[in-house]
């Protein structure tokens, strides 16, 4: 496997991106429309997560197998969420 030969500069740029996203997330809480606000606050962190996973955790220079391992947990977590949602979204609560 090709080992990571990122430059220090690239790493700092990624960090900069993470901080920028953090500021954007905080800025989102100023948005008036509550649905837009919630959507931003829930999706922008996913972008941060991707930056860390792809760059800091070297997925960008790893074989596809590693992507599969990285995605596996998320895949099954999604199935957990989806089927539990299937129950809670169709059940009348209180």
């Amino acid at each position, binding site marked *: 496997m090709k080992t990571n030969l990122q430059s220090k500069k690239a790493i700092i740029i990624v960090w900069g991106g993470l901080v920028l996203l953090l500021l954007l997330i905080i800025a989102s809480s100023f948005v008036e429309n509550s649905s837009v606000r919630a959507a931003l606050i829930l999706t922008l962190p996913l972008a941060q997560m991707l930056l860390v996973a792809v760059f800091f955790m070297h997925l960008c220079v790893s074989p596809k197998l590693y992507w599969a391992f990285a995605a*596996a947990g998320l895949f*099954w977590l999604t*199935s957990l969420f989806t*089927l539990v949602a*299937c*129950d809670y979204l*169709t*059940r009348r609560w*209180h």
Partner: protein
Amino acid sequence: MSEAEPSYLSAGDTLGSWLLTTDHKRIGLLYLFSILFFFFIAACAAALMRLELLTPQGDLVFSETYNKLFTMHGVLMVWFFLIPSVPSVLGNFLVPLMVGARDLAFPRLNLLSWYLFVVGGFFVMHAIVIGGVDTGWTFYTPYSSAYSNSHVIQMALGIFIAGFSSILTGLNFIITIQKMRAPGLTWFRLPLFIWSMFATSIILVLATPVLAITLVLLSVERIWGVGIFDPKLGGDPVLFQHLFWFYSHPAVYIMILPGMGVVSEIIPCFARKKMFGYRFVAFSSMAIAMIGFLVWGHHMFVSSQSIYAGMVFSFLSFLVSIPSAIKVFNWTATLYRGSITFGAPMLYALGFIGLFVMGGMTGLFLASVAVDVHVHGTYFVVAHFHYIMVGGMVTAFMGGMHFWWPKITGRLYPPLMAQIAAALLFLGFNLTFFPQYILGYLGMPRRVHDYAPEFQIYNVLSTIGASVLGLAYLLPLIYLVWSLRYGKPSGANPWEATGLEWKTPSPPPKHNFNETPIVMEEAYNYPSNKDHGDPEHV
């Protein structure tokens, strides 16, 4: 044949060389001794339960005691016998051998996994000894989190620790199978046992953490009196059931997939034919593992889960039966026109197929919401899962132990005794559990120690069956131990089976192979329509 290296059994004979071993074969044996211990305790609990159920009145034990007995039976059998049985005993022993490696990827993690298992078991046994738990192995809230006066947290802690044992074992297998296959051993040349272990390991690794955190949440709720399943705070006890069964349903596939893998090794060998539809069987293992994660709600049809979710889970549960059925068809097709002999491993494998089909079919009955409403919480469910777990899994475990016993110990056992034991198991099992289908259908609830008098005859039959079953477990214990001293030496390949594990001496040397084997043949390269007694043709 080089005799230079001693077998793994004689490489070091101090206690330390066993307790600090990193040899996967020795660790497999350490697990074997441990699970037999827990099996024995759990079987005693079952014996007491079956004795109690001889009469309609609850006259042998108090109901609280009975609750503790079935909890103990469930917890020990599920987590300390069934889940580790094939993976941690046969899997640990065979996976490196079958892929042509010297050991698993992480031998020290393997040893750690055994110690975690033992420590977990210690906590569970301690909880039992100081008074036990009465919630059932399912720990439903809010009884377990708020009202039970029994030692829930200690038992939960024991299971939590043992869970890490599972995770480490699964992790080890995944990496070993992925990365350490011998040259030429492509994925589709692997023994189907390895495919089963790989699929099982995916479940071990991804489902067990959910159980772990669920037990943590349960314990937090018990300790501090507040928590997320607490109805007083607006919490939902059904959420516990979602989380619990998200693990526990895939857990039953952890239990059965390895057994299917064992059967997939025995059938081609004793029918002297390559596995029919190899790729179908391989992909079915993966499909069972994946779809098995999506069906847990069928344990919750009457829990107040939404009816729409119930329908979705019902549909998915029907879907998950398909890959299992595919396997059964392929085993059958392998048997068709094979040169079948009926050695003990084969008897167990055949028993597995029949009993698994019955258990699986009744699973389909339970997957239909309408039927389940009628039989949920009755002995029908108990019969169903015992058909799969005992009729399926324990039978497969016995079959596997008999098949690989010569490899593990270098000895042969008396064949007729073994065949008798296998037949006895089949008979005793059916006598024990078939009446329970009828009981459940007629309405006898599970987890109660007294019942309406009209159910007595079936309970008596069941208890008689359990005694026969006990004998069927005892017999192999006797002759297998006997064989250690007096059994004929087996040689490297007494069954003339294919597979890398048979190409090394019995018992294998510590490092498995003198040189890394190179694989150039397909799996199950049995010559068809030849005399199986002629070694030249193997």
